[in-house]
């Protein structure tokens, strides 16, 4: 570990012998082309791996004592053999989550999902309280289908998670979205994020990504909704997470603290200490948002060996020892010792560098562009 002027690098979390969970893109195909989808940069042309190939990989996951897989894509429900794939997960002693746009969910497959007893949740994306808001970036008719998908899951008592992506078309609809999800539909909770500068969002950033003023509006709105609904709304990224994180950083600076624990280094991502990902073509990658870092291929390379020994995976893990003071981008920043550097995938997609703080999530940059910290604090 590196000793720096800012202090000792954070202790590296211990790495387990095998990943605890695996994120799997089981298809490249999707019936929608949402304008901010992180996944697509062009039309999908990768042929799906067969259910038998996934089954063989699930057997390896079983031997590795992996407890959970998260199925994404593309749109998982587009696969005609989804039930066969899920059966393979269940046979191999794992639980599963599915990330979906919600539009292809049917009673038949949901009945099967419920019968397994192994589904943690199906996550459906909802971006508006009314069709025009949601459909603006996802396509006409998708709102009604997604809401019906949620109702279908509820009918069969399958846990539903909803993710709201905050963008320019729905930033003034957030109160109504919360009311729809928590009061009308009756979900226990939902989470939010924002469209990152990845995939199709890179082409549509002017239409999609919040302006500085809209970011301020979104942060204030989300903090107000937190006061109303409590922990029924959460975020690991996007305006709500930024509001909470930036207020904490600013409070620490104003109170004259030298630093916050484990901050001042590239500690913004801990995913590679507990999970790994697989692309739709079977290539193993550290994260499905760092899909350019190829670590091996399922059913050819040993997952445990990759997990324990692959230099590229260790390089991502060892970002945590890189001090932010190393970067010109951070020089002179009053928040340097309170900052995590944020998501490596966002840094890569913006700058072409994984080992760099993400400019998109930089508090100083936001303030320099005229942004204001949110006025309301949680609670």
């Amino acid at each position: 570990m590196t000793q720096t002027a800012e202090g000792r690098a954070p202790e590296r979390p211990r790495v387990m012998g095998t990943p605890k969970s695996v994120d799997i893109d089981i298809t490249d195909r999707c019936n929608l082309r949402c304008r901010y989808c992180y996944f697509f940069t062009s039309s999908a042309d990768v042929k799906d791996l067969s259910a038998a190939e996934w089954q063989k990989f699930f057997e390896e996951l079983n031997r590795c004592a992996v407890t959970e897989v998260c199925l994404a894509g593309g749109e998982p429900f587009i696969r005609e053999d989804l039930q066969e794939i899920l059966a393979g997960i269940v046979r191999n002693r794992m639980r599963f989550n599915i990330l979906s746009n919600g539009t292809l969910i049917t009673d038949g497959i949901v009945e099967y999902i419920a019968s397994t007893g192994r589904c943690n949740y199906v996550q459906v994306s909802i971006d508006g309280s009314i069709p025009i808001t949601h459909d603006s970036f996802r396509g006409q008719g998708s709102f009604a289908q997604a809401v019906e998908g949620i109702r279908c899951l509820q009918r069969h008592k399958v846990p539903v998670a909803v993710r709201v992506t905050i963008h320019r078309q729905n930033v003034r609809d957030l109160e109504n979205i919360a009311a729809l999800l928590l009061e009308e539909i009756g979900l226990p909770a939902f989470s939010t994020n924002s469209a990152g500068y990845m995939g199709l969002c890179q082409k549509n950033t002017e239409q999609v990504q919040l302006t500085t003023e809209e970011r301020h509006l979104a942060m204030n709105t989300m903090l107000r909704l937190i006061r109303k609904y409590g922990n029924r709304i959460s975020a690991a990224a996007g305006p709500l997470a930024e509001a909470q994180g930036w207020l904490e950083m600013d409070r620490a600076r104003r109170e004259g603290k030298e630093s916050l624990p484990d901050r001042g280094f590239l500690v913004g991502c801990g995913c590679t200490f507990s999970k790994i990902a697989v692309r739709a073509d079977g290539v193993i990658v550290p994260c499905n948002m760092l899909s350019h870092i190829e670590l091996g291929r399922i059913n050819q390379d040993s997952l445990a060996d990759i997990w324990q020994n692959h230099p590229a995976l260790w390089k991502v893990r060892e970002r945590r020892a890189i001090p932010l003071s190393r970067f010109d981008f951070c020089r002179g920043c009053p928040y340097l010792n309170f900052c995590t550097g944020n998501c490596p995938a966002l840094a890569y997609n913006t700058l072409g560098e994984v080992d760099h703080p993400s400019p998109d999530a930089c508090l100083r940059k936001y303030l320099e562009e005229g942004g204001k910290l949110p006025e309301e604090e949680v609670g």
Partner: protein
Amino acid sequence: MADDKPQVNPSVILREEFDDWAVLFDPDTAEGYALNPVGVLIWKQLDGSHSLDDVVAAVKENCEEVPAEVADHCREFIADLVKQGLAGYEVSK
């Protein structure tokens, strides 16, 4: 019960996460149970062919500073696993 030789629930996963830490994970309930290295040693004996006496002997052979009450401890530990549905006994026809 088949000669009182306990065996693990085959659905339950043993994750030996670190040298000093392991977890039993039941995918049907999504619950996890922490095990120390002695617990892992006992768990690995529960294959339906080892009796309590065999388990105790394995602990004595592989562990240091084994207390005099080791048999009681092993019995209680296995009983707890059975109570939690993590282990059981084969049913005789």
